[in-house]
């Protein structure tokens, strides 16, 4: 049996059997599922009830009936979990808050003689900060009431106001040749996810190769093994074995994340409906009194189809094969170099120094990402996506935006050509260093 194959087998089997492999395999899909499920859960979870007392000296925002001091007024509209009550005076509100724990805050609008319209309001709380949601809602309603008062004062009807604020001109970015919309946000997001994934994969599995080499060196088993196997076979066996572990893990991630997402959707489908029903009810309730609020919501909803359309516009038939290409060959480029770095180290601490030349180009690409996202076809993006050491990460960021075939081909060819060169170099370093210890100490002494 071929010895490289034996080494590959051992590397694969010992790694896949480790509990840490399965822990990571399970945790990552759970993380993805959680990212998806937690916002839904939070949206569905009934928030605790908060009562806000409004003490308004200006009378602009509604006032309490003196006979019925705690009457709910329609001008500050109570929502599902925030109830607004009016208090005649600030002092009365203070006393009420002492007595009732459900009262989370007092909105106090002071009257100043110099001002026709109050410019300053304060939300008082006692020891416990009111929920973010309460502060947003109070602010939103204050602005709304103020605006409605102003509209009335200037004789502007709701319809006129709606016309002014809702008439928008829509700016799109389109390809002149195909006439397709660019959907920049969707593509930026996708590019970011893909390139960070590649970065993560190269780093994680590359350093696994490095640690594996150091383990063999520090446990001194390597001398026994290189008697039966050539150093090159040992190195390549490790690199390929770990590549297979990486692919296994990646495929498991994809499969498990898919299962988890489908599972969440299936188990929550009813809740989804209830949630949207509730949404409709509140919408209906506020329709008459609050046209602008509804419009805001419509705005947000209007974004959703464009995201779906954006995703649909992405050419997955190109992206998926390219991702796999850069995933595998980006790893192979770095893996042998990481193996050489491991061969030069005696301990894990040594590797941090020796592997620095390898981590720098990877990290640099990561740091250049904002600039590249700003201009996916700019000079920086083009250069980084052609240099083999940065191209796997850089190209994945650009791919969703569309890259000319010529550039992709050059980048892929350069990467393919550099792999045997790096492997050759690494094999030389590996062979000459694997049985030598204290290389770093010698090197340091020499340079003192």
């Amino acid at each position: 049996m071929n010895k490289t194959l034996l080494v590959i087998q051992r590397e694969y089997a010992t790694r896949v059997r480790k509990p840490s492999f399965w822990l990571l395999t399970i945790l990552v899909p759970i993380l993805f599922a959680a990212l998806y499920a937690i916002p839904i859960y939070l949206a569905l979870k009934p928030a605790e009830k908060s009562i806000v007392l409004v003490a308004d000296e200006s009378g602009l925002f509604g006032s309490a009936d003196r006979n019925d001091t705690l009457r709910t007024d329609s001008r500050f509209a109570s929502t599902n979990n925030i109830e607004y009550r009016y208090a005649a005076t600030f002092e009365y509100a203070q006393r009420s808050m002492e007595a009732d724990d459900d009262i989370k805050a007092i909105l106090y609008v002071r009257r100043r003689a110099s001002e026709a319209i109050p410019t300053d309001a304060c939300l008082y709380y006692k020891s416990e900060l009111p929920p973010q949601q309460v502060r947003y809602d109070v602010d939103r309603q204050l602005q709304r009431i103020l605006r409605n008062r102003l509209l009335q004062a200037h004789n502007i009807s709701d319809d006129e106001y709606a016309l002014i604020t809702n008439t928008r001109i829509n700016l799109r970015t389109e390809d002149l040749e195909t006439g397709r919309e660019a959907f920049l946000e969707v593509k930026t997001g996708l590019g970011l996810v893909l390139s960070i994934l590649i970065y993560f994969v190269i780093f994680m599995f590359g350093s696994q190769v490095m640690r594996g080499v150091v383990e063999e060196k520090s446990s001194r088993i390597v001398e026994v093994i290189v008697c039966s196997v050539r150093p090159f076979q040992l190195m390549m066996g490790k690199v390929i074995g770990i590549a297979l572990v990486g692919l296994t893990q990646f495929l498991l991630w994809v499969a498990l994340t898919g299962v988890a997402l489908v599972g969440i959707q299936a188990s929550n489908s009813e809740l989804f409906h209830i949630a949207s029903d509730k949404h409709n009810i509140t919408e209906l309730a506020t329709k008459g009194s609050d046209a602008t609020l509804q419009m805001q919501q419509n705005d947000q909803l209007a974004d959703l189809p464009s995201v779906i359309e954006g995703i649909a516009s992405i050419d997955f038939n190109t992206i998926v094969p390219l991702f796999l290409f850069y995933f595998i060959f980006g790893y192979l480029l770095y893996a042998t170099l990481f193996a050489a770095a491991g061969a030069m180290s005696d301990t894990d601490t040594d590797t941090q120094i020796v592997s620095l030349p390898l981590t720098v180009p990877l990290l640099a690409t990561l740091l250049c990402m904002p600039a590249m996202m700003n201009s996916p076809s700019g000079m920086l993006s083009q250069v980084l996506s052609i240099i083999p050491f940065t191209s796997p990460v850089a190209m994945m960021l650009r791919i969703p935006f569309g890259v000319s075939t010529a550039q992709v081909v050059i980048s892929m060819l350069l990467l393919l050509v550099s792999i045997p060169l790096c492997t050759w170099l690494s094999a030389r370093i590996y062979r000459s260093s694997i049985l030598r210890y204290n290389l770093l100490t010698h090197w340091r002494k020499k340079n003192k």
Partner: protein
Amino acid sequence: MFLETRHIEKNFGTFRALDDINIGVREGTIFGLLGPNGAGKTTLIRLINRIARPDGGEILMDGRAVSDDDVRRIGYLPEERGLYKKMRVGEQAVYLARLKGLSRREAEGRLIRWFERFGIESWWKRPVEELSKGMQQKVQFIVTVLHQPRLLIFDEPFSGFDPVNATMLKDEILRLRKAGATVILSTHNMASVEELCDDIALINNAKVVLSGSVNEIRRSFSNNTFEAVTRKSDQKLQLPDSFDVVSSTCEDDIERLQVSLPKNATANDLIATLLNQCQIVSLNEMLPSMNDIFVEAVKKGGAR
């Protein structure tokens, strides 16, 4: 000659590790490779194993240049030895045996027999890191000899072995020689050299400074000293002035006398002198120990 090195040279940069090394190992013997630390023993072993390549000279096995096939028939226990800590003992031994060219079934069959011989069957499924150092050494030894190599190379095999394991190792080495294997033993342990080795080569400062059969070397270093054991006599022994008494001890009615004779004198002269004065129990030539020879040879060459 089973294994022969001719004019071997090896340099690390400007450092000359081995310089014109010529040694010959006879088939079926134990060959001791001696020398102080840093003399180049391990480097020479790595060259024989083809882990490293010489810068000059050649290594012959059965009169031919050593091939990859020959290397597969070498069993090598390096000085710096280890095992994968996380792997199970049996699985790891099978893996290492398969790297040497054994099939899985063959490897398992032989390993089970060896494990039974050493009474360590129960370790098969345990991870190596749970084993003590002595236990790991047993496993390493088994892995070294499992593929029934024609040539065995042990680099400092006794370092780190406890006395029980060291004795076991000694017995196993002798047993392997009896079974026809050739052994190269690199060691500092001079007592074991006298006990085990047929021939030796002493390397110092990258050169062979002394080589040959152990008995011949010891004889050639002989300084004509004898130990005479006699019954105690009442009179004080009278010896010629040229006879130098190194030491004399008494226990009960036995007297031990170590005498260094002048170059032209023989044991017969000593016997003749003693014959009339006391009753001789025994007379032995005192050959210098390998330890003394080692120290003397190295001192003469000067340490680096």
